[in-house]
């Protein structure tokens, strides 16, 4: 038995899901960081006014 295709498919799935998840976490972190900055700026502006 060789089944090279099955092994490649399994490993492609593993790296695929890990990369998609990693990308999703990075994107969510970056969005939240932007929101934190925006809220801090709004609060700062409120203080000055």
């Amino acid at each position, binding site marked *: *038995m*060789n*089944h*090279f295709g*099955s*092994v490649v*498919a*399994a*490993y492609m*799935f*593993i790296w695929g*899901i*890990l990369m998609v*998840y*990693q990308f999703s*976490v990075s994107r*969510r*972190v970056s969005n*939240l*960081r932007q*929101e*934190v900055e925006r*809220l*801090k700026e*709004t*609060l700062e502006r*409120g203080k000055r006014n």
Partner: protein
Amino acid sequence: MSVENKSSAALQALASILVSAMIGIAIYGAFIWAPNEKTMGFLQRIFYFHAASGQVMILAFSIVFIGNVCYLLRRKPEWDWLATSAVEVGLVFNTISLVTGPIWAKPAWGIWWDWDARLTSTFVLWILYIAYLLLRRLIENPERRAVVSSVFGVFAFLDVPLVYFSIWWWRTQHPPPLIFKPGGLSPEMLKVFMFTMASLSALMVIMIWQRYKLESLRHTVEELKIEAEYRNDGGAR
């Protein structure tokens, strides 16, 4: 970026490089260093990452359980953040084991899936923790959300021992563990498997760490929003 944040980012980058190197070595071991298995041949190389993912999944869900129990006992939000982070990461490894299993099973058993105790309980585990995440989306109040999901998480964890011991308790299509049995894995295969497990466990720790940061940022956003609302109310008065 503060000094603390900078050192944390540097530490995370260093840990990521180390884990990437470990995974590179594990892939080399699984594809090149480990000998071909006699009956299944090249196909058996799926085993190293498939079985290791299953073990790491159990480890991640055990962290969820610890987080849930500690939250219910101490009511500190950090335990809830840890539990939620570990749920997502555990689900990633749960999905890997659920998908790579059938890819291996079809050529090995002639069927993609069998509703035996091991496969069914693993699938139920996946549904339970998806439900855990969905449940959190339904509750807006952070404290109530943490309590309800912690209670749900404690009950969901009851399936974990079922998954682990199912191959001993019932006759299953899924093979029993051959890892430490005489005539099971050759010493080279065992070394590769143990190293792959260590690499994926280290990867799981980094993934939970990153996801925990996200949860902490979400908390910061919620606090800033409350502060902004409070100031707006004060301004109106």
